């Protein structure tokens, strides 16, 4: 019995290798068949499911992407690729809020494993895009509702100015200011400096703090330590990678800012 299990695992692994090879050659049908066989032999290996999902993704077969990824994250709740492609599939069928949650999970697990990898960057790009689109939808609606409300208020003021002591024009002016104030958060401006990295000049994604008390974007400070030198870019005090600590306070502040000002998700 034990021997049977073992050989099935070996066979499945071989089938996965075949699948990877077909995938590289863009023979998606053959790749899907190979992964399917591997799954039949060993249904509990999450990578077989995510690899097959990747083929479905290339074919824009999002229903199957979702099915395979759901299985993969059920088997391994830390599967970065599983959460990532599940998120893309959900967004594809316009389930934005769940899709964004999946992308966020993918980003969290991805950063834990390889903070500097291309996957993390790719997931971030997709997440930012989804968040920006979400903001666009909501802010358009909010603006429209406000605009309607303002019109009604203006009409009401003009109709009911029976009291001779009150200047209607002044009231209308004040009302305009109130509505401008209400729309403020949705007007794209500049992100405050203290939420931006001094190297990227961009809003923080994964901020880390140095012993000098300065905060940088993790990926670029790592790049700096590797390519420029082992020093803090601003204070020039000596600095090594092991001294970097996540800056949770800034991360939360960025989260709170983005929650209110979704336009700041706009890339380039």
């Amino acid at each position, binding site marked *: 019995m034990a021997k049977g299990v073992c050989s099935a695992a070996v066979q499945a692994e071989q089938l996965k290798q075949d699948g990877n090879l077909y995938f590289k050659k863009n023979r998606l049908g053959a790749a899907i068949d190979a992964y399917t066989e591997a799954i039949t032999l060993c249904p509990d290996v999450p990578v077989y499911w995510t690899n097959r999902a990747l083929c479905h993704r290339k074919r824009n077969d999002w229903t199957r992407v979702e099915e395979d990824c759901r299985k993969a994250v059920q088997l391994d709740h830390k599967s970065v690729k599983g959460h990532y492609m599940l998120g893309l599939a959900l967004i594809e069928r316009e389930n934005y809020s769940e899709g964004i949650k999946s992308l966020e999970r993918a980003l969290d697990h991805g950063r834990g494993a390889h903070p500097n990898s291309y996957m993390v960057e790719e997931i971030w790009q997709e997440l930012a895009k989804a968040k920006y689109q979400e903001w666009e939808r909501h802010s358009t609606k909010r603006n429209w509702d406000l605009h309607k409300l303002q019109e009604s208020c203006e009409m009401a003021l003009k109709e009911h100015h029976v009291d001779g002591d009150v200047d209607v024009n002044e009231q209308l002016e004040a009302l305009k200011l109130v509505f401008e104030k209400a729309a403020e958060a949705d007007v794209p401006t500049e992100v405050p400096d203290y939420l931006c990295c001094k190297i*990227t000049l961009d809003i923080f994604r994964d901020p880390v703090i140095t012993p000098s008390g300065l905060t940088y974007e993790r990926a670029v400070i790592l790049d700096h330590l590797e390519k420029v030198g082992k020093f803090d870019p601003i204070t020039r005090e000596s600095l090594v990678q092991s001294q970097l600590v996540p800056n949770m306070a800034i991360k939360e502040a960025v989260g709170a800012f983005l929650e209110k000002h979704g336009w700041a998700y706009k890339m380039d």
Partner: protein
Amino acid sequence: MTGSSVSSRKVLSKIATNRLQKELTEWQINPPSGFTHRVTDNLQRWVIEVNGAQGTIYANEKYQLQVDFPENYPMEAPQVIFLHPAPLHPHIYSNGHICLDILYDSWSPAMTVGSICISILSMLSSSPAKERPEDNDRYVKNCRNGRSPKETRWWFHDDKV
């Protein structure tokens, strides 16, 4: 042609492009005083006009800086030179090369075009005399094949000037 990474003109990386766009926006809102950026659509090469500060020996004089950004800016310093004619200064060679540590060994990615400009202006402003570096002729001759100043092994002069 020189063999430097700057003049080989590789396209800017995504990080470099993003950051330069941010620097340009910031410059347009809040330019360092005494400097004017000559607007072009070339993000990789900036030409900046420098006005000598009032009360210094360069008052009322205008010079031009040329700033070329490498592909992996800001992890690598930009190449900064004066276009002809370069100001007469003990740290500025007649071919426009500038002996200033932050442009070479002491570069840090937290520096920006704006902060480089301010350093250069302060270097000009603190000069007591309009003269070329002692080794000007020898150095310029050595650079005749169009060598980038970033390839020079700089021996930084004192910090006083």
